[in-house]
């Protein structure tokens, strides 16, 4: 789970998405194929090689008002076509903390 803040070279080993945090509230979002952002990973545009990743990241960076800190993150695509986060960090970003809230809901 090397921090993507240290991501210097764009080299992807499998299907990936661009993720960021929405500017006004900070929630986790994913870049869509329609040049927008979605909070749902299943809406994310999937890239499969470095050139695609670079292009998607470039357009994401250009949308500075919509979201901040975009980076490329790995995903896994199941046999049913469902997209899942590719590592623990992204799993936590998608589903929330692993520890439960101290506040009883």
């Amino acid at each position, binding site marked *: 789970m090397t921090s993507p803040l240290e991501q210097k070279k764009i080299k992807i080993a499998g299907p990936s998405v661009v993720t960021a945090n929405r500017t*006004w509230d*900070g929630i986790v979002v994913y870049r869509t194929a329609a040049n927008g952002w979605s909070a749902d990973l299943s809406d994310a545009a999937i890239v499969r090689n470095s050139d695609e990743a670079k292009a998607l990241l470039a357009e994401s960076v250009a949308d500075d008002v919509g979201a901040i800190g975009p980076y490329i993150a790995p995903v896994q695509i199941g046999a049913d076509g469902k997209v899942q986060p590719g590592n623990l960090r992204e799993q936590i970003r998608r589903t929330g903390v692993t520890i439960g809230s101290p506040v009883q809901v």
Partner: protein
Amino acid sequence: MYAYDEIDRTLVNERVSEFRDQVKRRLSGELTEDEFKMLRLQNGVYLQLHAYMFRVAIPYGTLASNQLRQLAHVARKYDRGYGHFTTRQNIQFNWIKLAELPDALADLAEVGIHAMQTSGNNMRNVTSDQWAGVAPGEIEDPRIWSELIRQHTTLHPEFSFLPRKFKIAITASDHDRAAIKIHDIGLRLIKNEKGETGFEVLVGGGLGRTPFIAKTIKHFVHGRDILSYIEAILRVYNQYGRRDNIYKARIKILVHELGIEKFSREVEDEWQHIRNSSLQIDDEVIEDIRSRFTYPAYEKLPHMPDELRQAAADPGFEAWRKNSVAPHKNQGYSIVTISLKPIGAPPGDATAEQMDALADLADKYSFGEIRVGHEQNLALPHVAKRDLPALWKALDKLGLATPNVNLITDIIACPGLDYCSLANARSIPIAQELTRRFSNHELANLIGRLHINISGCINACGHHHVGHIGILGVEKNGEEVYQITIGGRADENAALGNLIGPGVKFDEVADVVEDIVEAYLALRERPEELFMDTVKRLGVEPFKERVYATR
């Protein structure tokens, strides 16, 4: 408590207006994130995994009850109903929305709280002993000097664009509860042979990827010269500190590379130029700050009131009293540490309801005052001994009477990969599992004083280097792996821990700690020999053998 004057109030309010405008311009696109980032950091706003994180300063760890209530209000209105007390006398809110941050800041400003100096490459929140002003044997209240430095450094242009962040901690007791030796500058308040107040000045301490214990740069600096001496240190740092490499930019690296002797000479030369300037502090300035600290009107109370004598029959109360209640400098009063480490809970977290209730208890039992310690616990600094039984019952109802202060379940942990964008591994679940493993109070007491510190990355916000047992989470081939050290400590005898061997997986950490503790219990010469004494006597080897014999 310290009462802010009109200048402070104006400064805090102006800061809110300024930030409101900056946020508005950011959300409209007038400011890019690159332009805005430094501005938000100067107001304590980070971007974490799930959301923005808002870090609020609690200067020298002193809070009034109305301030704690307002923190509860911010947790409830703008966040998810809780806050996280950090290792540097700050509180963090994890789920705040950028668009609402100016309102949250404005609400905090109503009670004199702000987020200045909680992030960025500037002089950070000055920290101190959470028992300041009430600890027996203390030379003088260190918060007076903390406040002096706070006033001098807040928004000071020379300290606002340093090579890296810069942290100062002050203690005035023999036993260091402020961890001054792991700060960029550590100040130990002392008296010279003439009885004058001054400081032993230490420099170059810090943790992170290159940990160092601070070294003494000057054995006595008179109180009137402390600002000029600090400024001299900062000027040498500003001049020579590396700005080309973030990992080598802290003053500890400069002190290490120059050597303490050369660094001292540079500081001394600089100091001679400025010590007799306007930076020399008049007694009136100190007295003015002193006069703005208000102290309770203590009553003359018996050392052993009837209420305490009667409550001693209750084993639950006695366990808590022996663990969490410390002597006060005034007869008939006590300092009560409130553990924010209930079994199975995230260390340092408090809900809005707990904060509100604690504020009420502070009003009822502690002259409206609360303290925050770097171990991520709170304290009520002025509790009459006769009130201890009633306070204990109230705390117990709130889940805040776990009698584990300084024991193995009083764990320091950073937010780790559950929250932090820098983290490589989780910290909090490790802490939770360890508290469950050692939840038996008799066992924890049998083990005695033992501090476990956990960090989720090499930046060491969980102070793992100075944990008696330190746990560092790293990432290896996509998995969380934890390196274990033993023998670290953050007190007046501060030391860095030693690695015991190869890292272990997430699921193995609690087993390894159990092995270390079992080895200690078998190896100690007598029950009074603390874990640290056994490690000092025997070194790492016997613990290493025990842990890795079957792994």
